[in-house]
């Protein structure tokens, strides 16, 4: 079995554009789930809205930069729309509504009804020339560090992407260390108690949901720009749950957890994929029970099992404090 190939694959993915998109989205989900305790099970919708807002604006004749603004704004609006009817109610209603809304929105985007704007099942391609034109590295030049080879195009995306991640993480750090951040944590701990102390819990939750959504939309925008492509099947429900794993793996309610979680997750996701592919092809008993397409699904099974195992055995993740996790309610 080619272990070094699997590891190389993992490392390239761990630093690549998808990891960046996960990190940004996870920063947003962490604000909602980790700090405020909001169960948003439709996080992928915010990424989708960001990506489509950008692509559709360019398609309609706007500039890419305007498009990014439209995408982020659309995510804020989506957050408000989902939050207004649900955030006065018990926490599970938000979870139910967001998971339902995300999939409905995706089906709407891919339906012929909206095709003139969203491109239906085809999606929209080739809208980010303005970004790639700024690339100083030369799109087709290869850059190598040891066995890791990346194109100039990818290198540019990675540098811009991780810079954005860093800036957003610092902004969130500033926010959660403020009295506003303390208010969010208080809501996470006990909503009614916080309300009894004269705090407008509803508005704070709405802010966290919308702001977290806006952050997720930036993740969607980065991914769309890198791929020069948006399509509805990039925003399947599983993305939301991957982001949950990323947040909890890194440490929910920590500043740097989402970034670390994204890198580690993406590494293992690709590592497992390489291993499973090879095992399916070369190990006879694996090949006997799984076809190659089935083998590719095993990593998703592990995502689900990993999410459960983390919550049961290490809820504080990698960066969370053991002491904090042990405090009883």
């Amino acid at each position: 079995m080619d272990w070094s190939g699997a590891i190389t694959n993992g490392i390239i993915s761990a630093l690549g554009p998808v990891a960046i998109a996960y990190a940004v989205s996870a920063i947003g989900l962490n604000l909602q789930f980790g700090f405020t305790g909001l169960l948003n099970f439709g996080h992928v919708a915010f990424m989708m809205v960001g990506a489509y807002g950008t692509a559709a604006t360019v398609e309609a004749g706007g500039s890419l930069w305007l498009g990014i603004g439209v995408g982020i704004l659309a995510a804020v609006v989506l957050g408000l729309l989902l939050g207004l009817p649900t955030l006065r109610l018990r926490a599970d209603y938000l979870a139910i509504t967001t998971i339902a809304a995300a999939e409905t929105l995706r089906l709407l985007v891919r339906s012929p009804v909206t095709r003139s704007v969203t491109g239906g099942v085809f999606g929209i391609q080739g809208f980010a020339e303005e970004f790639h034109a700024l690339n100083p590295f030369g799109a087709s030049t290869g850059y190598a560090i040891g066995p890791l080879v990346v194109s100039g195009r990818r290198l540019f995306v990675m540098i811009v992407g991780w810079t954005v991640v860093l800036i957003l993480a610092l902004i969130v750090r500033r926010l959660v260390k403020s009295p506003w951040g303390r208010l969010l944590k208080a809501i996470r701990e006990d909503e009614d108690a916080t309300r009894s102390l004269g705090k407008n819990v509803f508005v704070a939750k709405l802010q966290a949901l919308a702001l977290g959504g806006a952050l997720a939309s930036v993740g969607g925008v980065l991914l769309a720009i890198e791929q020069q492509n948006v399509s509805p099947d990039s925003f399947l429900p599983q993305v939301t749950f991957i982001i949950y794993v990323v947040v909890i793996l890194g440490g929910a309610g920590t500043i740097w957890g989402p970034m670390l979680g994204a890198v580690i997750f993406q590494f293992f996701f690709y590592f497992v994929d390489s291993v499973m592919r090879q095992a399916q092809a070369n190990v006879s008993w694996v090949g006997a029970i799984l076809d190659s397409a089935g083998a590719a699904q095993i990593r998703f099974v592990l995502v689900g099992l990993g999410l459960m195992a983390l919550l049961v055995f290490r809820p504080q993740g990698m960066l969370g404090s053991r002491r904090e996790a042990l405090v009883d309610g």
Partner: protein
Amino acid sequence: MADGAAALTGVAPRPGVAKPDPILVVEGVTRSFGGLQAVDVSHLEVQRNTVTALIGPNGAGKTTLFNLLTGFDQADSGSWSLNGGPIVGIPAYQVARRGMVRTFQLTRALPRLTVLDNVVLADPHNPGESLWRALIGGWRRGEEEATVKAKALLERFGLEHMADEYAGSLSGGQRKLLELARAMMVEPELIMLDEPMAGINPALTQQLLTHITGLRDEGKTVIFVEHDMDVVQEISDWVVVLAEGQVIAEGTPSSIAGNPDVIEAYLGAHRGKAVEDE
């Protein structure tokens, strides 16, 4: 005895009686759950600057009445006012801001916040709680002022040595004290305590009682739910008895002790059907 309590001498001990200087006036409040009439209070006034005890058998509707008055539940009908201003249908957080703060029967410490943060959070004036100010800055002074105020309260309630611990690591009695400190941080006029003595060890009871009468002595009004009649006799200026949602008696502690309606309500409830716990 505080001024408000002194003014109660001469007020007739009958349900719904008018008080000389009421801070809270309740009129015709009802709330039912399914077929069960949980609260049906036709008239109730609470005298300013007193410790008023709210007693009654399990299921009498005490907690439900608290929930209704503080905006945590919605009444089917009725009106009530604080300092003459109606506060019906106002969200819970605004009720607190208008000066009526409640605690919960089961303590609601915010476990993964430090004790100090629990109290600082309750400050009603902290500018940094606006998202915008949190982003652009300029909230440090307000935070420092709130911290000074919070530390003074922690000292008053004997929790200063725990300031940097997580609230989740406090004992039951310490949590009760924390809730008192937190409630005081909101700068209320009226504090509603739902069973403040429940589940704490006897050694702490006396300390807690002293704190409660201390609140009255500095001009606050306290309403508290309690089961222990000794406690009620010791610290309250006025007692309101609730049974099956209705005010069946009120008066000074001594006048309540021998009231046959009250005895009947307690014994009746104990003899009769099992009543749903609140």
